[in-house]
C-alpha cells in the first residue's frame, strides 16, 4: 500500500466572511502529481497556501507524510513542515547566485556542496552556478526555483501556476522539463493551474475546484469522460448541455435517441453533456438544424448549430467540410461515444452507450 504524502480533512478558510476554501478532503499519494484546476477565484491558491503554512485554516486539519501539521490547537510554522513551494514569479533571491539560491535551504554541513552539485546536474543548470537570477531566462529561473525547493528534500512540492509567466512557445518545453525533473527526483507535487490542458497533461490525478470546493478528484481520463458535475464537464474541454427525457430503456433528446440503463422513472428530465466531437452534421435541405456560426481553427471547423428548440450545439468538423452560415443540416451523434448524463446536477450512472436513431 502506498503512503499518503498529504492528507487534508475538512479544511475551511474564509477571508472577512467570504469563504475561500470550504470543507476540503484531499489525499495525495507519495510520488504522484496532483493538478488542482479551477477558474480564478475558486480557492486553489488558498488551498496551496494552507498546506504550505502561509495561511491558518478556520477549521480542519492537514497531515504531511503522516505527521499532523495543522489541526485543532496545532500549527506547525512553514519552516518546520518540509513542504516546498514554487511561486508563480519563482521568488528567486535576487541578491544571491544560482548556487547560493539552491544552497539556501540546506544545512551548513559537509554534504551541502555535493547536494547543490546534484541539484544543478538534475535540473540541467551546469555552468550557470554563479549567474544572478536576472541573467537567466524564464525557463532557467523556473528550473532554479525547482532545484532550490527539491534540494531541501521536501515531503511535497507545491507549485502555484508554475507556467503562467512563460510565453506560450516556451511553455510546452518547460512543462516537459519540469515533469522530467519531478519524476527523476521521485517528488510528490501539487500544482495549481487554471489551464485545463495543463492539468490533464501533467497530473496523475486532477482535482477540479469550484467555489472553494473540490467537485471531483480522479484520474485525468475519468475526470474528462465521467465528470461528477456539469461544471467539471464544461470546465474541462468544450461541451454543450442538452436536455433529454427518460423513456424506459432509452433517452430521447433533440438530436436522437440513446440507450439508457439508469434507474430513473419514465418522463424524468435529464441533461446530456455533449462535446463537439460527439456530433456529426450533414447538409440536408429538410434538416432541423441551421448553422449559425463557423470558427476556422486551422485543421478543423467548429460549427455552432441552432436546433428547433432554440438550443445550440457545437460540432467539430474536418477543415475540408466547409458549410455556409445558414446551411440547413441534420444532426446526429457519432457512434461509440459515451455521453455523461446528469439528473439535478448529479451524474446518472451509465447514461447511454451507442447512439441509435
Amino acid at each position, binding site marked *: 500500500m502506498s503512503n499518503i504524502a498529504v492528507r487534508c480533512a475538512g479544511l475551511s478558510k474564509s477571508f472577512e466572511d467570504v469563504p475561500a476554501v470550504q470543507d476540503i478532503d484531499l489525499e495525495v499519494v507519495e510520488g504522484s502529481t496532483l493538478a488542482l484546476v479551477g477558474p480564478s477565484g475558486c480557492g486553489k491558491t488558498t488551498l496551496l497556501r494552507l498546506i*504550505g*503554512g502561509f495561511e491558518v485554516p478556520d477549521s480542519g486539519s492537514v497531515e504531511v507524510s503522516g505527521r499532523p501539521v495543522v489541526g485543532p490547537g496545532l500549527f506547525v510554522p512553514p519552516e518546520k513542515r518540509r513542504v*516546498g513551494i514554487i511561486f508563480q514569479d519563482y*521568488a528567486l533571491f535576487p541578491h544571491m547566485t544560482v548556487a547560493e539560491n539552491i544552497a539556501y535551504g540546506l544545512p551548513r554541513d559537509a554534504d551541502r556542496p555535493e547536494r547543490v552539485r546534484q541539484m544543478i546536474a538534475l535540473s540541467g543548470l551546469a555552468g550557470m552556478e554563479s549567474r544572478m537570477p536576472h541573467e537567466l531566462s524564464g525557463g532557467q529561473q523556473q528550473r532554479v526555483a525547482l532545484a532550490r525547493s527539491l534540494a531541501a528534500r521536501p515531503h511535497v512540492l507545491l507549485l502555484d501556476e508554475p507556467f503562467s509567466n512563460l510565453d506560450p512557445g516556451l511553455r510546452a518545453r518547460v512543462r516537459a522539463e519540469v515533469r522530467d525533473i519531478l519524476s527523476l527526483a521521485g517528488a510528490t507535487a501539487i500544482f495549481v493551474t487554471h489551464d485545463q490542458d495543463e492539468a490533464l497533461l501533467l497530473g496523475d490525478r486532477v482535482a477540479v475546484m469550484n467555489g472553494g470546493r473540490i467537485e471531483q478528484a480522479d484520474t485525468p481520463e475519468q475526470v474528462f469522460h465521467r465528470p461528477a458535475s456539469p461544471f467539471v464537464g464544461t470546465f474541462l474541454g468544450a461541451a454543450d448541455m442538452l436536455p433529454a427525457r427518460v423513456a424506459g430503456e432509452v433517452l430521447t433528446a433533440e438530436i436522437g435517441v440513446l440507450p439508457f440503463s439508469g434507474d430513473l422513472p419514465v418522463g424524468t428530465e435529464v441533461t446530456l453533456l455533449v462535446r463537439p466531437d460527439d456530433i456529426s452534421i450533414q447538409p440536408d435541405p429538410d434538416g432541423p438544424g441551421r448553422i449559425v456560426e463557423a470558427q476556422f481553427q486551422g485543421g478543423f471547423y467548429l460549427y455552432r448549430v441552432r436546433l428547433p428548440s432554440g438550443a445550440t450545439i457545437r460540432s467539430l468538423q474536418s477543415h475540408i467540410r466547409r458549410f455556409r452560415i445558414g446551411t440547413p443540416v441534420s444532426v446526429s451523434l457519432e457512434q461509440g461515444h459515451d455521453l455523461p448524463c446528469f439528473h439535478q446536477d448529479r451524474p446518472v450512472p451509465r447514461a447511454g452507450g451507442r447512439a441509435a436513431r
Partner: protein
Amino acid sequence: MVAAAIALPLAYLVMRALGAGGETADLLLRPRTLETLGRTVALVVAVTGVALALALPLAWLTSRSDIPLRRVWSALLPLPLVIPSYVAGFVVVAALGPRGMLQSMLAAPLGVERLPEIYGFPGAVLTIVLVAFPYALLTLQAALRGLDPALEEVSRNLGHGQWDTFWRVTLPQLRPALAAGGLLIALYTLSDFGAVSLLHYETFTWAIYLQYQASLDRTIAAALSLVLVAVTVVILLVDLSLRGRARYHRSSSGAARPSAPVKLGRWRWPALAFCALTVTGALVMPVAVLLYWLAQALHAGEPLRAVWGAAANSAYASGLAALVAIAAALPVAILAVRYPGAVSALLERFTYMGFALPGIVLALALVFFGANFATPLYQTLAMLVFAYVILFLPQAVGTCRTALLQVSPRLEEAARSLGRTPAQVVTTITLPLIRPGILAGAALVFLSTMKELPATLLLSPIGFRSLATTIWSATDNGFLARAAVPALLLILVSSLPMAFFVIRQQRTRP
C-alpha cells in the same frame, strides 16, 4: 513605543500651556502675539508665492524647452537645497548687510555709507526663497516630465496656440505639483529658525527662542509654540481640502513617450540669462561669499582647531541619530508594509509628525519634559539625539518603506518554506534586499541632522558646539570670518549625496 516617545513631550507642552489657564489666553491675545502671527503669515505667503513664481518657469525651461545647457541647469538648480537657511542668512548678511561686501565695494568709489536695510522682511524673504525654491522646482519638473504629451497635442489640434495651451491645459494639470511644492515651502518657512533669527525678523520660531532665553517663566514660549503648531495644522488642512477636490488621472502611465522640446527661438537668450541669474544668486554668490570670508579668515589667522572639534561633534551626533533613526524606522516600516491594518497605519502616520513639527517646538517640549521629569537626561547627548530622531524619522521610515515595497513577500515565504525561521528570513533575505533603502535613509538623517539648528541650540549639552551652532552664533555676533569655514565644510559634506542623487536621476532618464 516609538509613537509613545513622540507623543509624550508634546502632551506635556499642551499641559504646560493650559496649566496657566487664563494667563495663557491673555498672552495669546496680546497685540504683540498678533503682530508675530501677522509677520509669520506674511512671510509664509510671500516666500511661497515668490518661490513658486521662480520655480515654475525654471521647471518648464529645464524640462520642456530646448534651452542651451539644459542638463547643466537641471543639475545645478536643485543644489541650493543643500544650503542650510542660516548659512544663506549668513551669506545675505555678509554680502548685503552693513559692513558687507557690496557696501565695501561701493564705499570706495562712490562713497556709499548705507545700503537699503536688509534686515527684516525683504532679507528674510530673499534668504528663504533662495534655499527653498528647489522644493517646488523638483516637484514641478517631475510633473512636467510625467505629463501625457497627447493632451497638449489634442489642444493644439483643436486650434489653441502654444501659449493658450499652456494656460488652459498644461498649467491646470500642474496644480497638484504646485500644491505639493507650495506645501513643502510653506512648512519650511514656518519652521525656519536660522534665516529669520539672523535677519532679525520676528516670526514665531524666533519669538519662541527669545522668550525662552529671556525669561524664567517659560509659559509664554509654550503658548507661542502651540500657536505655531496650530498654524501648521491649518496649513496642512488647507492643503488637504485643496487636494480633496482635485482629481487628476493620467490616462497612460509613466511609459508615455516624452514630448518634443519646445523651440525657444529668440527667447532662448533671455531664458538662458534667467537660469544663469538664478544659479548665480542661489549658488555662485553664496559660495563666492563664503570663499571671500574664508580668505579673510585665513588672513586674520582664525583658529581652525575649533572648527574641527565642532565638525567632529556634528558628525558624531549625526551618526548616532542616523543609527537610532534606522533602528526605530525598520520595525515601523516592516509593520506598515507587511501587516497593513488600522493600527500599523496609525503608527506610521504618527512617525510622520516630525515632518510638520517645527524643530524649535519639539526642542522646547523636550526641554520642559527633561527639566521636570527626566532630569538625568536633560542636556545630555541622548536627549539631543532623541530630538533628531523624532524630527527626521519620517525620512528613514520613508526610504525603508519604499525599499520594502519592492521586495515581494513571496521571497520571504519561499525562504520560510526552505526551513528558515522568521528571524533568519529577516537577516538573510529582507535586510540584504532593502540595504540600499536603509543606507539612503541613514544618509538622509545624517545630513538633516548635520544642518539642524534650533533643536541643537536648545538641547545641546553644555559646551557642545556643532558646525550649525558655530555658524549661527558667529554670524549672530558679527564674527563673519569665523562662520565661513564651518559653513563651507557643511555645504561640501551635504553636496556629495545631492550630486550623487542628481547624477543618478539623470542617468535613469536619458
